[in-house]
């Protein structure tokens, strides 16, 4: 069974799960566990049980898999569930720490469509991010992770975070502006 699925896309496997092939869900867990663990680590501190969060995320994915549209990409749908679950964990931990409306989602904002990737060398940015990502405020950290580490487009990030596409662009720009001075500070010490 597993060998048959190796070359299959996530969407096809999700379709099989929808049709009752439970074992296929194991393949999806294998494919995404490390990615979701890495994603969760950027939000939860080391002391917190990331395994519990991971279990809750994959259980939710399984319960809600019938709402997944197999014509669309699987990973943004999965990250959206992970995002909501992690937001709930953070809410439980720090009551009222997340605003109901974020100011930068209210008004239209303009951003250059030139992606960060085209402005800064990928490797350079990746190295900088590894060093300084945890110093960024969470609202800037998340789009950066989804874009650089998980290869999601701005539109897909907007779907994961349920925010306007323009807000994703603006947060990416601000994150980039913040990363450089932060990294310079770090490398001086």
């Amino acid at each position, binding site marked *: 069974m597993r060998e048959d699925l190796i070359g299959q896309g996530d969407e096809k496997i999700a379709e099989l799960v929808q049709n009752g092939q439970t074992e296929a869900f194991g393949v999806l867990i294998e494919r995404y566990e490390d990615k979701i663990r890495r994603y969760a680590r950027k939000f939860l501190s080391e002391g917190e049980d990331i395994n519990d969060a991971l279990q809750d995320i994959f259980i939710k994915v399984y319960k809600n898999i019938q709402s997944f549209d197999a014509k669309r990409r699987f990973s943004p749908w999965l990250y959206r569930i992970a995002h909501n679950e992690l937001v709930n964990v953070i809410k439980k931990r720090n009551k009222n720490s997340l605003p109901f409306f974020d100011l930068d989602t209210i008004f239209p904002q303009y951003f250059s469509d030139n992606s960060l990737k085209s402005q800064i060398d990928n490797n350079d940015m990746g190295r900088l991010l590894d060093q300084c990502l945890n110093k960024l405020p969470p609202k800037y950290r998340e789009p950066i992770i989804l874009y650089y580490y998980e290869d999601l487009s701005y539109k897909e990030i907007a779907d994961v975070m349920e925010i*306007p596409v323009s807000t994703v662009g603006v947060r990416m720009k601000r994150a980039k502006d913040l990363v450089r001075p932060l990294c310079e500070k770090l490398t001086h010490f």
Partner: protein
Amino acid sequence: MVNHMEEKQSVKESIIAKIKSGEIKMHPRLYFVLKAALIVSVIFVVALVALYISSFVLFITRANGTWFLPRFGPPGARIFFGSLPWFLILATIVLILILEFLAKKFAIIYRRPIVYSIIGIVLIVSLGVFALDRARFHPNLFRQARQGHWPIMESIYRQPGLTGLKDAHRGVVTELTDNGFKLKKLNDEILQITTDEKTRFFPDQNLDENDVVVVMGRRTDDTVLAKAVRRLDDEFEIFERR
């Protein structure tokens, strides 16, 4: 490395075991269809309530004369803001925010800045209010409530906000008197309107019986010393004439 592999195995195996034992079950497709239908239905109902209340605010302010007060200049504008049904206006704003919150479940809404969806909701509600106004929705309900066809509606359309303002009074002139005229309000109450040389008339002083007017002036018992009087069209045809 060994620990990490064990962790991986444990997460996957524990979930698959729970699925196989039936501890975790996937929601059927119908569950999501019903959930989406429920959200759409709640949006529809909230939109209808918002539409009803906002169109009622328009009706109430026109029926009791508040709507016309700014035409009396700055003093009228001051009374206008003091006489608005703020509770109903606040209720409409809350309902619009609830609509925004519910609509944000859909990608077409959350992918755009909040200000756009708020403007969209306000526009849709305003168009609905305009349509109800053209269809004389509230005046018809008001008339039917007065005739006793809608006992529940009667309490709504006989509420004090329609007639009970201290500084603005809309009604029909039933009798011209030496020092003014008698005014019959929507609740059939008769007020004696006193005019003097300081009273301003719009567009002119030639009042006749059956004219619909709005009077600005403080009420004392059943008497009002009019600061200003404006003749109006009875656009709702809700005033009973002799």
